[in-house]
């Protein structure tokens, strides 16, 4: 086995996240490629949560159904995994937890190891050690990582945890010699970074000059708010947990008015409340950056699960016509670059810019080369006003120079009512029409800056797959060995060029792959290009696509 999928399963509160955190770092720092993704229930204690950790000598970035090693950390921990456990699955752990499952069962007394090291609480360290040994991770790296984790708790606790981990390590190593697990290490991997989608969005925001965040907590978007709060003092960012999403969005728009670079982070239900203010941004031509991490709806839906069901929401939110930009990062790198870009585009075009992610993307992590900051620039478009400054000058490209109060000799006057060039309320029909046209012209100008879709796979394709957002890496892996198949992936879904039609015309068959029930993006493509995508692979049970499932479904349609 060279590409191993490990699943840890247990109750919320049992520390699976900590195991995931430490283990992925131990493996990565030992030179192994890792990928981790979790799925969890909407509760703080109990229930059943799992995390999948893939380890490989090649880059891995997507979820697989297959479980090579399963570690149940409690009773009933395997119940929801039954279909994924085969006779090839190695099930390891306490006798009582592995008793009733399929697969090859191997008893590893984690509790015993922990107790011998000093405390039953060290089971997680024993499990981390065991898996590190099984996968041939570096023993020193393991020791260091455990030390780092428990340093604050004092020497004794560090020492005993290390002891538990090392005993686990020994058992893992023994087992790895019995079965054939060989994952080749690559020293370059050690130099790479390891982070999740939410952190990438947060770092991207800082790199975009974000200095104001106001939001109301809602899973799965909260992690971005937390990340920025953790770094606020370091960078001088204003972070406010607003009384509701309505206030959050209005605050962020107010911040841009005064020259800040503001962000809201939310999910579908929260964004629904921000819709009113989105329309305000459209009317007063305020820049605003919105990170929306999707989860299944309608309403409260499945709070901790994933879906790509909010495309129509962000596409059509707000009353009246006004331009906007929607980015849909496909992976962690794109989450960083596109969030950074969102701030420049918002500033340049004075429109709302969305970064549309989902639970799967924000909660998954893997190792990747360091972000390249050399091309990253903060483009500021604010002008110093002159005495006769008018906020809504009618221009050919639709963009009116944006001033901020207190900077220059002029006054900055914005109005949510229809207004004239001065920003004054007007009910004049001609002025109204001219302003609508100006705003829409700006929407055309934006098209100069479209992030084009990427074609991946066989250039000489007969089948063309269409995907957007976080499905990128899964589809990529699913079609790796398929001939005549290519993927056209969209990291920007609005605006898009009609000319993308040329890709469809070359294909015998076009198939849309989306994590929603109706094919929202396929419908959008039809609206723009007139091309109807009949074949659609859709998933909407709350989970992301797996590689195997896509492989099967794609083979069925081609």
């Amino acid at each position, binding site marked *: 086995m060279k590409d191993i999928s490990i699943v840890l399963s247990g109750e919320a509160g049992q520390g699976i996240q900590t195991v995931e955190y430490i283990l992925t770092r131990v493996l990565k720092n030992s030179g192994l490629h890792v990928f981790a993704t979790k799925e969890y229930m909407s509760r703080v204690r109990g229930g059943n949560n799992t995390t999948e950790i893939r380890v490989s000598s090649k880059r891995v970035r997507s979820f697989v159904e297959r479980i090579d090693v399963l570690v149940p950390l409690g009773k009933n921990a395997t119940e929801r995994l039954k279909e994924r456990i085969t006779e090839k699955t190695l099930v390891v752990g306490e006798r009582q937890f592995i008793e009733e499952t399929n697969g090859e069962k191997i008893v590893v007394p984690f509790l015993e190891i922990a107790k011998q090291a000093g405390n039953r609480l060290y089971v997680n360290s024993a499990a981390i050690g065991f898996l590190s040994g099984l996968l041939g991770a570096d023993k020193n790296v393991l020791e260091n990582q455990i030390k780092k984790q428990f340093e604050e708790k004092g020497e004794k606790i560090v020492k005993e945890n290390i002891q538990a981990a090392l005993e686990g390590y020994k058992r893992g190593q023994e087992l790895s010699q019995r079965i054939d697990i060989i994952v080749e290490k690559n020293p370059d991997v050690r130099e790479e970074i390891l982070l999740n989608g939410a952190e990438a969005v947060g770092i991207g925001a800082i790199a975009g000059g974000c200095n104001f965040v106001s939001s109301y907590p809602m899973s799965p978007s909260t992690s971005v708010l937390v990340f920025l709060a953790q770094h606020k003092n370091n960078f001088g960012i204003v972070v406010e947990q*607003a009384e509701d999403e309505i206030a959050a969005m209005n605050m962020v728009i107010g*911040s841009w008015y005064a020259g800040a670079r503001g962000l809201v982070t939310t999910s579908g239900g929260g964004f629904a409340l921000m819709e009113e203010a989105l329309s305000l941004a459209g009317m007063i031509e305020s820049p605003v950056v919105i990170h929306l991490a999707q989860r299944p709806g309608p309403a409260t839906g499945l709070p901790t699960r994933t879906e790509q069901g909010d495309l129509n929401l962000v596409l059509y939110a707000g009353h009246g016509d006004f331009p906007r930009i929607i980015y849909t990062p496909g992976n962690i790198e794109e989450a960083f670059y596109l969030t950074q870009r969102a701030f420049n585009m918002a500033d340049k075009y004075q429109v709302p810019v969305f970064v549309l992610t989902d639970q799967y993307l924000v909660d998954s992590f893997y190792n990747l080369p360091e972000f390249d900051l050399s091309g990253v620039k903060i483009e500021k478009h604010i002008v110093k006003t002159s005495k006769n400054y008018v906020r809504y000058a009618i221009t050919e490209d639709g963009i009116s120079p944006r001033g901020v109060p207190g900077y220059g000799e002029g006054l900055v006057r914005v109005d949510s009512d229809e207004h004239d060039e001065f920003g004054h309320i007007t009910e004049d029909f001609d002025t109204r029409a001219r302003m609508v046209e100006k705003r829409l012209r700006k929407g055309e100008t934006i098209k100069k800056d479209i992030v084009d879709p990427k074609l991946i796979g066989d250039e000489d394709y007969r089948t063309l797959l269409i995907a957007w957002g976080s499905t990128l890496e899964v589809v990529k892996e699913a079609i790796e060995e398929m001939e005549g198949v290519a993927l056209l992936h969209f990291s920007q879904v609005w605006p898009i060029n009609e000319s993308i039609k040329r890709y469809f015309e070359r294909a015998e068959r076009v198939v849309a792959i989306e994590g929603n029930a109706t094919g929202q993006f396929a419908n959008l493509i039809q609206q723009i290009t007139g091309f109807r995508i009949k074949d659609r692979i859709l998933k909407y049970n709350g989970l992301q696509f797996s590689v195997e499932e896509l492989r099967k479904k794609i083979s069925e349609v081609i």
Partner: protein
Amino acid sequence: MKLTDYINQEIAWCPGCGNFGIRTALMKTLEEMNVDPRNVVIVSGIGQAAKMPQYIGVNMFNGLHGRALPVATAIKTANPNLLVIAESGDGCMYGEGGNHFIHTIRRNPDIVNIVHNNQIYGLTKGQASPTSLKGFKTPVQVDGVILEPFNPLAVAIALDASFVARTFIGDIEFTKEILKEAIKHKGYALVDIFQPCVTFNKLNTYEWYKENTYYLKNHDPTDRELAFKRATETEKFPLGIFYINKNKETFEEAARKGNRTPLYEYEVDFNKLKKVIESKRS
């Protein structure tokens, strides 16, 4: 730059409306205090009262119904050097924006919150507002208002707002002096102004306000309990400064740790950012 630069515009208020007096009082206040209009932002919501910034030559953010306070808070935070005034009607500030009213008081940004309290909805042509008195009949409240009126002053004092005052626009000079105090005060300052709506509110007229109000005399505004008691009086409504608490940190001071540099001058420290990224290595 003059505050009256926008006076030539046609003013869309009914003749005799109390809004004119508030405009006069506010302009005089700003002029007498010698503030540079370029450093003033008036943020308003929607309604007749909310049209105020249209008619004064300062920076203006005429936003959404009920949403002036979050916007004003953000502007003050993004640039603490600006004088920020959030101004709108009672429906806007206490009805649609009621939640923001509560939480803005808790935040305590250094802004002035002027509320035109005409005890009715003007722009939508005469429905009850949160401050309409019980029994008050309108085309919607056909049997008369059945709800208890909202008491903005009592709520503000209960939340330990840092400055709480009420005036009546029948007395422009008095209103002006209170506005000056509100502007000078560091922290959130509520100035609720009784303002007759001569078109739709035939109950709360100039005469009615004159008869049903009195000036607070020998009142100690630092005594919170006393202030609260005064705020709950309804036999006659007291006018003046009810409550002042000078010992509160403002939102922008706390949120920015005293930094007053406008955020438009902000530069990202890319070396620090590199370190954050590098920290993801182990």
